[in-house]
């Protein structure tokens, strides 16, 4: 069952009604039942794996607070080794084993739970139903965001049925998520997918256009999915963490990683970078560089044990270490500030740096990535690429791509700046304008959406 399907929508609606009818105490059970149905229908082969992981983490979590320090550390280490080892095993290339759906996400949820319990940041789960509902929570199990147990449990303990306003904002999130996925991401896919799947068949302008379009496609696809997941969670009265905060407005790579896939980067910050940098504190700047480098490599390899993801991690590690070590001369800082373009120049530079890194992220292998990159000098007639003049038919036109991207950027910017609330939510005229906007988005999806592809890029991780 795809997350983007009528069946999923019916399941969500049934769960919302069930929690209303049966009362709030039935929420974990209803969520667990719905999640089990979703998982069984989506990936029956991974059910046993998911169930065993939950049982193991639940049992170990309960023992961590009662066992002695020595036993606790052994128990914790062994369990994390088993859980992460399983993740590494399924990510290894070259075997026929199909990875359980959402394994990268639920594994990180389980590891965070065990570490939080061990460090005393949260209480161990008191109910297996609640814990299993948290780990397998169906709006988030396939592609995150990676929620924390303490955050989830806190919401269960103080559970309130969502108000009308919360539910309508949830539907707004879902609607805009659908727009981002079906209209923006899938349309960009018409350019990006054929070109980056076989870069050797395309000439330089196509390669460059596809390379620049891919980060935007990925953003629309993943943040669209996150919006739908957050909206679905909100309908059930559970607030999911944010995953994106206008990443393409980041003025440095460091800032980019605080705005992109935030639930993963914050997870790595809390459970890898901070402990590691604390351990390496005595090594000074070298220790910091090592901690940053390991962190960025982990981000890359979290997506899969492939050379392309390793390269993605290495490139980001270089950016981040260089950024952390940088000491820009004061004269240069002043000169740049006087130009008045520093922020926008940095935003542009960051986008270009990340586009370069994402070429490796998207490529099937390293040679394909290099083939794409060869298109850049060829575009400027540097003669490094034997470009083909043939421009095979692509399923997109520039207008059909640029217009939805502009709408997405406009809406995201407006919402983030508070214009939506100011103009549409507080006035009577705004209510009419709001409905007009909703109709416009629905019609854009119906008429402009591409419905052939309901798979999300990040669902494969």
């Amino acid at each position: 069952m795809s997350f983007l399907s009528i069946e999923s929508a019916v399941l969500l609606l049934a769960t919302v009604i069930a929690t209303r009818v049966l009362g709030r105490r039935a929420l974990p059970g209803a969520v667990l039942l719905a999640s089990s149905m979703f998982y069984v229908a989506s990936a029956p082969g991974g059910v046993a794996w998911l169930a065993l992981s939950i049982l193991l983490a639940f049992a170990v979590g309960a023992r961590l607070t009662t066992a002695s320090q020595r036993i606790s550390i052994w128990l914790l280490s062994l369990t994390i080794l088993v859980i992460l080892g399983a993740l590494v095993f399924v990510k290894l290339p070259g075997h026929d084993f199909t990875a359980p759906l959402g394994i990268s996400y639920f594994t990180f949820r389980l590891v965070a739970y065990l570490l939080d319990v061990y460090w005393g940041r949260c209480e161990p789960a008191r109910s297996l139903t609640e814990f299993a509902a948290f780990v397998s929570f169906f709006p988030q199990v396939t592609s995150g965001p990676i929620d924390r147990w303490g955050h989830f449990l806190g919401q269960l303990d103080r559970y309130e049925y969502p108000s009308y306003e919360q539910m309508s904002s949830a539907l707004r999130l879902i609607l805009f998520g659908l727009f981002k996925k079906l209209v923006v991401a899938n349309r960009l896919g018409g350019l990006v997918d054929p070109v980056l799947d076989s870069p050797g068949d395309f000439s330089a302008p196509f390669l460059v256009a596809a390379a620049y379009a891919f980060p935007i496609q990925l953003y629309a696809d993943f943040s669209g999915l996150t919006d739908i997941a957050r909206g679905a969670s909100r309908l059930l009265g559970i607030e999911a963490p944010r995953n994106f905060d206008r990443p393409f407005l980041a003025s440095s790579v460091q800032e980019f990683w605080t705005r992109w896939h935030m639930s993963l980067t914050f997870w790595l910050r809390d459970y890898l970078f901070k402990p590691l940098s604390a351990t390496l504190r005595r090594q000074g700047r070298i220790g910091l560089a090592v901690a940053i480098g390991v962190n960025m490599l982990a981000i890359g390899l979290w997506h899969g044990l492939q050379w392309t993801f390793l390269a993605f991690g290495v490139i980001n590690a270089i950016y981040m270490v260089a950024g952390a070590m940088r000491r820009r001369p004061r004269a240069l800082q002043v000169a740049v500030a006087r130009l008045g373009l520093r922020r926008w120049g940095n935003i542009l530079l960051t986008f270009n740096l990340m586009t370069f890194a994402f070429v490796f992220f998207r490529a099937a292998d390293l040679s394909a990535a290099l083939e794409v990159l060869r298109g850049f000098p060829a575009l400027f007639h540097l003669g490094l690429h034997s470009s083909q003049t043939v421009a095979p038919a692509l399923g997109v036109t520039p207008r059909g791509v640029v217009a939805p991207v502009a709408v997405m950027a406009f809406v995201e910017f407006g919402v983030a700046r508070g214009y939506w609330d100011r103009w549409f939510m507080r006035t009577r005229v705004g209510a009419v304008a709001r409905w007009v906007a909703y109709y416009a988005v629905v019609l854009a999806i119906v008429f402009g959406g591409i419905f052939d592809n309901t798979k999300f890029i990040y669902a494969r991780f």
Partner: protein
Amino acid sequence: MKLGPLLKLVLRLTVFSAPLILGIGFLERGLRSMPTPSTEKHKILVERGPSAEIVIFGSSHADAGLDPAKFPCSAINLANDGQTLDIDLALMRELVRGPGRLQVLIVPVSLFSFHVSSGDFARLPEKVPRKLLGLDVPNVDWLSHWLGQSRVVKATPHTAIGFALRGFVPLPHEVTNLGWTPDPVKPGRTSIREASTKAEFHRMAMANDHQKEATLALLAILEIAKGVHAAPVLLVTPFHRNYLAAWAPSELAEFRARLSAIAYDYRVVVADYSQDPRFSDPDFADADHLSPGGAQRFSRILASEVIGPLVRCEGVAGGKWAP
């Protein structure tokens, strides 16, 4: 039980959705009544099929290249842009459903024909609304099965506008498909570069590799033709030399070998005019389509060299029908 906010939401959603559902339903219902190649060809087959003595299938090569008015008997041209052999087979089945006078069946095959199936020329649907409305079309999903496989049409702004304007704007040839519409001559379209672009476009469609379906469809057409005692002709229309040069010799050899094998096994006439020296630059509209003048010449040549010996006209007064 606390259903208050939920009921309010459901109520508002219902009010919000009602005009959308009604509007889209109305539009879809209207679009289904719009003519498509499928509906129009069905009409032609019902009206003209029983009296047709010569029937032409095939893609745009035959559509632009064969004027049925030049044939000796009553003839209809059912070729269409991007029409593949599986659609030819569907038309053939419809053609022989009732009694008829079919004597010669012309099945044009192009270099890509043995590798493609309906839908492989995904870009073609763009042309319909573009010609209908003079607009660029960002959504290529329009009429995704427009070649006659389905009458269900996906709604887009263009189809919506098209539906609103139907009756006011003439439908494009790709939809009405009434016989022979010559391709206008476009200067420069036979250049080496254009010809290689065209060949590349055809190769991309071939990459989907529907070899088995295409070959089986052709063999089924030949079997059906034999069943109704009609003489099938496998026809290759003339191509510009630059178009042929854009194909590897091995590709051309493979195509011809396949054609010869089928001709031998099924004892059918093969009329291969692909390299006919009688056709020169003015005879071509572009790299692989004949110009109006070229089509007239080719139709006359085909009528005298191939069709004439195979057919004995018994048809309607005047001996022929052509739109």
